[in-house]
């Protein structure tokens, strides 16, 4: 394909991204105005803002995966995590800020899945930025109405003997799903186990990978 010359491809074969030269929207203008005022009044600096953006971008599901792998291997930590997930993850060294976290454990009997119907609440400090589909109207409206149909589209088909519990993150709590530990992983290290824990498995739309 690199040598095909289509109008929408660059000579290197990559699609052109259209220039972003539309006028600023009302809210973009508002954001710039507020930001410039905060800088002008000495409340924050451009360097602080850039550093905060870098911190946000640096968070990834790998953080949550470490929490899950530890819960799989350390029964005392698992108990702490289920009792008070904010304290347990903070003790593990994660900067979760003022986040009120609840950990939901998937078992053979119960499958948990998380949605925010009102907006896009998500445990960003542990999982990074939410995927685009998490914020879509389709995911938000259908997950509370027909969770098993949504899960099936993600490739997760559950037996009738498993109860599905949907968690609508409507107010101050954030949720992380602790997926079930896959079979055949008894001899893996915590580090190897963490590599099996996907982002979707911590939202509840996926399962942990098999080794």
């Amino acid at each position, binding site marked *: 394909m690199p040598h095909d010359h289509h109008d929408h491809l660059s000579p290197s074969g990559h699609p052109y991204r259209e220039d972003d030269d539309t006028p600023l929207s009302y809210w973009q203008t508002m954001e710039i105005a507020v930001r410039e005022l905060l800088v002008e009044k000495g409340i924050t600096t451009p360097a602080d803002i850039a550093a905060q953006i870098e911190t946000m971008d640096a968070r990834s599901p790998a953080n949550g995966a470490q929490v899950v792998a530890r819960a799989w291997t350390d029964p005392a930590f698992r108990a702490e995590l289920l009792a008070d997930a904010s304290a347990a993850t903070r003790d593990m060294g994660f900067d979760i800020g003022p986040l009120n976290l609840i950990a939901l454990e998937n078992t053979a009997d119960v499958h948990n899945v998380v949605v925010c119907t009102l907006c896009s609440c998500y445990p960003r400090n542990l999982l990074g930025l939410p995927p685009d589909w998490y914020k879509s109207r389709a995911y938000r409206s259908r997950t*509370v109405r027909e969770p098993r149909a949504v899960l099936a589209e993600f490739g997760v088909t559950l037996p009738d003997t498993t109860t599905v519990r949907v968690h609508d993150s*409507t107010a101050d709590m954030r949720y992380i799903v602790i997926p079930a530990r896959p079979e055949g992983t008894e001899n893996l290290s915590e580090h190897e186990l963490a590599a099996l824990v996907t982002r979707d498995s911590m939202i509840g739309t996926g399962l942990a990978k098999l080794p």
Partner: protein
Amino acid sequence: MQHVRVKPMMPPGHVRTPHYLRGKIGVIERSLGAFPNPEDLAYGHAAPALPLYRVRFRLGDIWGEDTPHPDDTLDAEIYDHWLEPADAP
């Protein structure tokens, strides 16, 4: 098990009680403590802390018994002033 009904109120403005749960009956899954009322916070008003609960609903009690898997559940966080005592549905 304490059953509660989400009050079928339709106030204007910023609220964090989804429409689809209003008037529905569930049980208190756990108390979460008190949090500043987002209905005041959203407008920069002084926001008294109100008790917040996780309420668990059967999907059948939200969408009707003909919904597939009516015994699957939905948990949501609902503020105290949106809840009233109720009998089991």
